[in-house]
Structure formats: C-alpha cells, structure tokens
C-alpha cells in the first residue's frame, strides 16, 4: 500500500504552549502550517501549569528585566547561557502583553493591570527584597494561556492533525530534516508529512519517573526523536523535583501557594526552611526546598504515620484568599488528599517535575550540534519548550520561567521559520531510506508471539529511574542504576504487543512511547553519572560542592554508544555585563 503524504511549509510537532505560539506566528502569515499532536491541543500538559509566567512588568513592585535576568542566572546555578537568558527576560514583557491581547484572562489589580505574585527565587535589585514578577490567572495560568493560544490558532485557521503520533524525523544524507513520519491514532495508518521546517515542541519526559507531576503523555517523544536522528541531548542530568507534590500521588501544588504566604512545617511544627534559607525561607529556589524536605524526612522529622512527608500550611491565609487566589489547589487538595486547604495543612513531598535539559538550540529555536571545534545549525529543524535546551534554566529552573520559556522561544522559533521560508522556497528531495527506517520503527510492533509486556518493562524502568536517578545521587547509586537501565534496554527487543488491531490502539502508542522513555531516561541517568559535582538540581553527596573550574560546562549525550561530550557555557550576555559565578545562597 502506498504511503499517504502531505506537504506543508512548516510542521510543528506538539500543541502545547511552545508549539501553538510558534504556529500562530506562522498561521498569521500565508505559510501553510501543520500542527501534529497526539492529543487534542487543549489536553497538552501546558494546561496543568498553575502559578504563572514571569515578566518584569513592575505592576505591583518596582522591577526591570535586568533583575529578572540576574535571578535567572543565579537560579540556574550559573549554568544557563547568559545571552539566551537576557533575550528571554527582555522578551518576557512584550510576550505577556501579547498573551493578554490574545485573550488570556489574567487576574487583575485594582488599577486594571495584570496581577503579579511573589514566586521563589525572584528578587528586586539583584538579590534584594522579594519581587512580585509572576503574572497569574488565579492558579490556572497554564490553562488560561493554552486555551487562548489554541483559540487564536483556530481563528488563524492553523491546520491541526489531532491525535496523530509522531514516529520519527525524516532526514537526508546531509542531516537536513525533511519532515516526519506520523501515525493517525484513530486508524493506525502512517502518514508522511513533508515540510521545509520542522519544529519539535513535544514537551517534557517526566513519565520516566514513577512519582511525577507530569501527565501520562509526557514521554519525551521529541527528545527521543532527536536522539535517534543523531542529535545529542544537552544537560539532561538536571531534572527538577518540585518541592510540593501531594504526598504519595505527585499532583502539583503550585509554588504560588508559598508566594501567597503559605509555608512548610515538619512534624514538630517547625518552619524548617528558616534553617536552610534564612532570607528567602519558603521561597528559596526549588532545588533548595526539595532537598530540605527530603532531608527533614530522612532525619525523622516527617509527618504522618509513615513520617514520609511534610505539611504545607495555607489555612492561616483565610478562606477568602484561598478561594480567590488558589481555587484549583483547594479543589486538588480536597480530591487527592482529602484535605480542605482553607482549613487544614496539605501533605506534600517532592515530585518529579521538569527537565531543564533537552535538544540544544540557539535563541531562535534552531537546533545546533557540535561540528569540528564549533557548532552548526541542523537544517530545517527547530525545537522549543521543555523538549529544548536553549539553555535558560541551566541547572535549576525558577518557578514561572517555564511558561515564559515556551512562549518566548516558541514565538522566536515561529518567527525564524518565517524568515527561513523566505530563503527556502522548495522542499528538499525526499530520502526514502530514512522513511523506511521510520516505518521500521512502526512495523516492528507488528511482530507476533510471546514476549515481555509493555507494562512490565515500563513499570520496572520507571521504578529504576526513581531509585537511581532521583533527588540525591551518589556514584554507587547511579552506577548501579545505569547498569540496570542498560540491562532493561537490552530487553526492549523482546517486548511484544499482544493486540495488533489498528483502530485507536493505545497499546501501540504506549509501545512507541516506551522506546522514547528509555532513550530520554538513559540520557538522564548517564549524564548524571558523569557529572562529578553538585550544581542546581543535580545534588551529589559524594561531590557536595559546585566545581566551576572543571564543570561549568554543558553536557551533551549522544545515543550512539552512550557517548558524552561537553561544551562551554555562554557567559556573555547580548548587551549587558556578565554575571560572574557566585556562591548561591537564598
């Protein structure tokens, strides 16, 4: 049977904030743009972002983008690229205004301006008093933004391929990306989408861990596709564990809760963050708070019958503030913890949340790979959002900077694609051998016979990741982990689908996702084992200090032979002075 083909100017894979903000730029021109998403766009995980998006609007307190930049560089533990960070913090301001113009229902201040709340790691005047920089739509900011972006794309008539799963990128012998092979989930039929430019915006890979705030769909599809196309993943060892997931379940309780005045207590009722971060206390950056919670529990000061969590107190704020500013949290607490946050504290524990690393790009969203002593752009390929690594988050992301990242760089990628299309009027010739390779990845699951089930390997893999690549990492724990993961990876060819039906076969989708989980998970574990220092979210008791002499560099993991490479951090901003590395205290 002949393979169905479609041609577009641009192909965007993923319909979260990054993908949709790239798509809207393109759709507003006369470019033909296709958005492929394995779920209906408003189901993308951007919808779950709660707290808000950072921009130095100075609506509540004095602010400017340079302070925001300082906080982001410091928050990144000096691993973030300062040119990209400057770009993002400057762009933040027009980006938020554009969102507002696109209809996002931001909460408001009495003077009619956008409401901004306090968030962790945000300061005035380069490390001074707490800033109010995080623009919020109650505690449903991601939902409000995602829906508005989808709506704008509907207006602009973007072509959506809803519930299509991207199998692999297609590339020619020079490494240029020609589009992607996708599968219509409803029919199980493959479809080849040719495009002059392809944007990966597939989000994170939080499903590599067992306890996670991430949705079922966050399986690192784009990152794994990049890996299989020979592109390395950058800084994958930096995985953020959000301090406040609902204990035992992982659902997120936004940092906005602490921004509004909530705080953490241990079994003795002590506000323990005062010991770990005397100034910022509960609003210290996320890695600091997560480690503090884990330490409290490890040292026997946890709450509950198993002493396995701490408590987040909100009830002192009063019912009115809680229901006005944090309605979603109150609802989640009630449903998943059986607790009314307006009257009782919430049981919380760190949960796998966000991968700082990803596909290496420049600030225009172009994917870049090492070439000789320098770097070069992969023709026709872009990445934006959590799947990309620009890098603005370095070793640790600040709350409110992820929505910002997806929006700023999604937009930048879209705009650069428009320019790129001016220069490249024609599609490059198709490369049949690459299509065949992608098809093989799909047809591999038609193999019949007995074998390991997807579930079995998936469960074992996620548990191994949790046990061996979690919050605290030693050589021994991680070394064992990498061996275990490799052994599990060797069993992948033995996995069999028992259900070979075509129509909406979710098992087939999960099989394809399983391979992506393995590729991204092993990238995390391997990069982590190699980095012998503690920096940001990567915390090693055996190397407790940050080592700027040897390790102020980005890691690059290649799938082929699990090879590692490194490249320097870009410390020179675009227009301002460099922020030199300093001890990171809050």
């Amino acid at each position, binding site marked *: 049977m002949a393979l169905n083909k479609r041609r577009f100017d641009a192909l965007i894979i993923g319909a979260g904030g990054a993908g949709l903000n790239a798509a809207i730029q393109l759709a507003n021109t006369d470019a033909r743009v296709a958005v492929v998403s394995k779920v*209906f766009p408003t189901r993308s995980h951007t919808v779950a972002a709660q707290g808000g998006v950072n921009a130095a609007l100075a609506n509540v307190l004095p602010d400017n983008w340079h302070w925001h930049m300082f906080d982001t560089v410091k928050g990144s533990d000096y691993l973030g690229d300062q040119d990209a960070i400057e770009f993002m913090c400057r762009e933040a301001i027009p980006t938020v205004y554009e969102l507002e113009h696109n209809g996002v229902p931001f909460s408001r201040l009495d003077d009619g*301006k956008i409401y901004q709340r306090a968030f962790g790691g945000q300061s005035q005047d380069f490390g001074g008093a707490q800033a109010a920089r995080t623009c919020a739509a109650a505690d449903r900011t991601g939902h409000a933004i995602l829906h508005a972006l989808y709506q704008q794309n509907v207006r602009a008539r973007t072509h959506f391929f809803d519930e299509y799963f991207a199998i692999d990128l297609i590339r020619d012998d020079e490494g240029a990306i020609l589009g992607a092979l996708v599968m219509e989930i409803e029919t199980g039929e493959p479809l080849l989408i040719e495009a002059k430019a392809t944007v990966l915006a597939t989000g994170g890979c939080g499903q590599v861990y067992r306890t996670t705030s991430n949705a079922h769909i966050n399986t690192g599809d784009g990152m794994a596709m990049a890996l299989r196309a020979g592109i390395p993943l950058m800084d994958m060892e930096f995985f953020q564990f959000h301090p406040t997931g609902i204990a035992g379940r992982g659902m997120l309780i936004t940092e906005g809760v602490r921004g509004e005045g909530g705080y953490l207590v241990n079994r003795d009722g002590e506000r323990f963050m005062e010991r770990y971060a005397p100034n910022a206390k509960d609003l210290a950056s996320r890695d600091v708070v997560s480690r503090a919670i884990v330490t409290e529990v490890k040292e026997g000061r946890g709450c509950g019958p198993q002493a396995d969590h701490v408590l987040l107190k909100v009830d002192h704020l009063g019912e009115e503030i809680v229901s006005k500013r944090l309605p979603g949290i109150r609802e989640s607490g009630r449903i998943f913890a059986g607790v009314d946050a307006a009257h009782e504290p919430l049981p919380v524990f760190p949960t796998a949340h966000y991968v700082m690393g990803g596909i290496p790009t420049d600030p225009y969203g172009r994917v870049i790979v090492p070439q000789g002593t320098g770097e070069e752009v992969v023709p026709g390929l872009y990445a934006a959002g959590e799947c990309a690594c620009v890098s603005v988050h370095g070793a640790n992301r600040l709350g409110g900077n992820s929505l910002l990242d997806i929006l700023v760089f999604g937009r930048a990628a879209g705009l650069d694609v428009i320019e790129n299309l001016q220069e490249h009027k024609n599609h490059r010739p198709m490369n049949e051998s690459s299509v065949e390779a992608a098809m093989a990845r799909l047809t591999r699951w038609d193999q019949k016979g007995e074998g390991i089930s997807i579930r079995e390997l998936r469960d074992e893999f996620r548990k191994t990741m949790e046990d061996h690549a979690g919050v605290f990492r030693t050589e021994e724990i991680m070394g064992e982990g990498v061996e275990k993961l490799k052994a599990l990876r060797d069993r992948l060819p033995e996995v069999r689908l028992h259900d070979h039906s075509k129509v909406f076969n979710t098992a087939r989708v999960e099989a394809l996702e399983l391979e992506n989980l393995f590729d991204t998970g092993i990238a995390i574990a391997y990069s982590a084992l190699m980095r012998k220092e503690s920096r940001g979210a990567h915390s090693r008791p055996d190397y407790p200090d940050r080592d700027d002499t040897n390790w102020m560099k980005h890691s690059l993991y290649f799938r082929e032979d699990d090879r590692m490479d490194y490249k320097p951090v870009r410390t020179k901003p675009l227009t301002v002075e460099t922020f030199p590395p300093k001890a990171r205290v809050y």
Partner: protein
Amino acid sequence: MKFLVSRFNPESDTSPYMQEFEVEVVRGMMLRDALLEIKRHDESFAFRHSCGEGVCGSDGVNVNGTNKLACITPISELTEPVEVRPFPGRPIIRDLVVDMTQFYQQYRAVKPWLVRDDPMPEQEILQSPEERDKLDGLYECILCGCCSTACPSFWWNPEKFHGPQALLTAWRFLADSRDQATDERLDALEGPYKLFRCHTIMNCVDVCPKGLNPTKAIGHIKTLMLKNAV
C-alpha cells in the same frame, strides 16, 4: 470490586458489549486508576486519559449512568458493580473512546477568541477586578465534553445545536469587557437551533466536573439578546 466496562473493537465486534473485570481497590483510588488496572490485564482496552488531575479533560466517561472525569472520581463514591460506558450520543471509535468531532466543531463555531477592533495598546488592555470577576466560572472550562454529551438537546441535534459547552464559551467572550464583537456574536446565535435548542434541562450543570454552570451562562445570553432586541 466488580467493574463492567463497555467494549467495542470495530475490527472484530459488530456491536458494543459489557465485559466484567475484578479490580482490587486500594484507598484513595480513582476511577482512572481502576481503568489502568484493567488495561494492565488487557492491553487492548482503550480509553483516553492524560493529566490525572482533572485539568486536561481527556478522560470523561459515563459511569453508572452519569458523565464524570475518571481521574477525579473516587472509587469509594461509586456503587458496585461499576458500569463504565462511553459518552452518550457520540459515535464510538473503540471501547470508551468516542468521536468528539461535532463537539469541537460547535466550540469553534462560536468564534472562541477575543475580538478587538480598537488598535492594541502597547501594554495590557485594562480590566478592573470586577470586570475580570465576570469571567470566573466561564474560562475554567476544560472542554471535557461531560456537559454537552449529557444534554438531550445535543443528543438529538449535535450538528446544529451548539450545546452547553460552546454556549458557555460564547458567553465567556460576551462577558469579557475587552471583547468588541457583542452584536456579531448575538446575531450569530439567533435562529431556532444554535442557542434556542436549550430547554433549561440543566443536565449540564449536574455533571460539570469543574462545577461550572452553562445554564446560567445561557440565561445571560438570552437576557442580553432580549435587551438588545427591545
């Protein structure tokens, strides 16, 4: 605990049937967890789900006769045997997965985006907290479809009646102080079908997992229309 789930695979079945599963229930278990347990036993079982916390709106199903989001429905609140069926009135693609095309078409039909004729200011369009409060109870919709697929009027006329979801969205923009397309929006809703198939049955309000009230929104649209007409 005994579960009866609706199964249908178009490649092998002629019509849907109920299949029984026994699921071991643990404390705090949600319906989605039970469905995942069933999938663990039988990978051919298909249903949509994603975020697991009631914000993505993927996993709406009909449980013991009522539309619910599986991920925020505690098993402890359900009576045994738990009967799980796909959304009423939607064509079944497979098992619990239904074709929501018409639902999305109705959503898109109300022009669900902010329309602004004035030139955009350099900064935000100002909006007072009171004006913003009018959007509460409207913008939180997650497009899960529980309401529209519980609505008899939508069962009978899904291609012409907007349904509670789309009408809630229509009011979300009519109620937004920043929107400048009130007349066009109201005109577009005239006629016997799009808006006026709503007979205030209120099944939508009963099932909305986010506690929203489409009937109230529809009432506001009718009132505004009436005001503009006289």
